[in-house]
């Protein structure tokens, strides 16, 4: 540890730990409860919609004006899930690139934090593109946030998650801009570490949503 760097970066703390890292973990803890409440709401309302479309079941008259297929598109969501998982891999590689800057073997792509930060942002944006496609197709098929209980709870839950991904992408692009402007150095590793923790949390929330919303019938 470099005491000089530590004292320069932030004042001494009673725990010896950086306040920013404690703050992000406390924030992530509070986010666990936020998403648990949204997932609870979805699960409680699941199967209680009076009119279609329904997530896993077809909807036929008189519940629907016209016959409707189950609305969830599992293949598309599986691909977007894979994209988000790969973004987490890119994120850990971005952090490793910053932490190991200047070390032998990190001159190439493995040591390019710019590449990995941009890759993570692009993968996050791709995930958002899949979500936009999904939301648009749902609306075209007659499911809006006001259609039924499923629509209300589904759009609220996945919309909140999408908003978190959007915030994460903006955060990553900010780090990328800093990296381009002055280059992220090992002393900046904590900045990347904090953003990585947020990004991985967004990923683990999606792991839960994918199973509870999309796969469990």
């Amino acid at each position, binding site marked *: *540890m470099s005491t000089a760097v*530590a004292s320069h970066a932030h004042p001494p703390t009673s725990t010896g730990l*950086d306040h920013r890292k404690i703050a992000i973990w406390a924030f992530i803890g509070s986010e*666990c409860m936020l998403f648990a409440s949204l997932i609870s709401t979805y699960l409680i309302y699941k199967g209680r919609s009076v009119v279609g479309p329904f997530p896993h079941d077809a909807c036929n008259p008189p519940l629907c004006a016209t016959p409707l297929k189950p609305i969830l598109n599992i293949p598309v969501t599986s691909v977007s899930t894979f994209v988000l998982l790969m973004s987490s891999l890119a994120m850990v590689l971005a952090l490793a690139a910053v932490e190991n800057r200047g070390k032998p*073997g990190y001159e190439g792509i493995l040591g390019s934090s710019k590449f990995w930060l941009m890759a993570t942002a692009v993968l996050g944006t791709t995930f958002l593109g899949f979500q936009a496609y999904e939301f648009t197709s749902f609306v075209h098929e007659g499911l809006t946030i006001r259609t039924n209980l499923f629509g209300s709870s589904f759009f609220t839950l996945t919309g909140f998650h999408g908003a978190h991904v959007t915030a994460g992408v903006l955060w990553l692009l900010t780090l990328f801009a800093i990296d381009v402007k002055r280059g992220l150095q090992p002393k900046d590793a904590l900045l990347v570490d904090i953003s990585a923790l947020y990004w991985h949390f967004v990923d683990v929330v999606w792991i839960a949503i994918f*199973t509870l919303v999309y796969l*469990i019938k």
Partner: protein
Amino acid sequence: MADHDTFTHTNADIDVHSMGEVHEHPTWKQYKWVAIILTLITVIEVWVYYTPFSQSALFVPALLLMSAVKFAIVVLFYMHLKYDHRLFKALFTGPLIIAISTLLALLLVFGKFAGR
């Protein structure tokens, strides 16, 4: 590959202690294997969704188990909680336990476990 295999914090500019890291981070190989395992579990989850096993009583428990494993892998290895200070572990697992307990209690109150 030897240089790539180890992501350590030997660089003196990194304030490892204030970042709360008790041990070294995983290696590139471990990160790669974590990604492969996460992908494989996801493939299995989607595959069983389309098989007759999805009608089985074990389908939901199996999915929940696989999801929990993926969740734990990301938290332990990608979020480095396995290597981090115990205060960070407490800050995450405490609220997580409260969140899961609340979720289960709400499902119980609203009769979601009835008839199973």
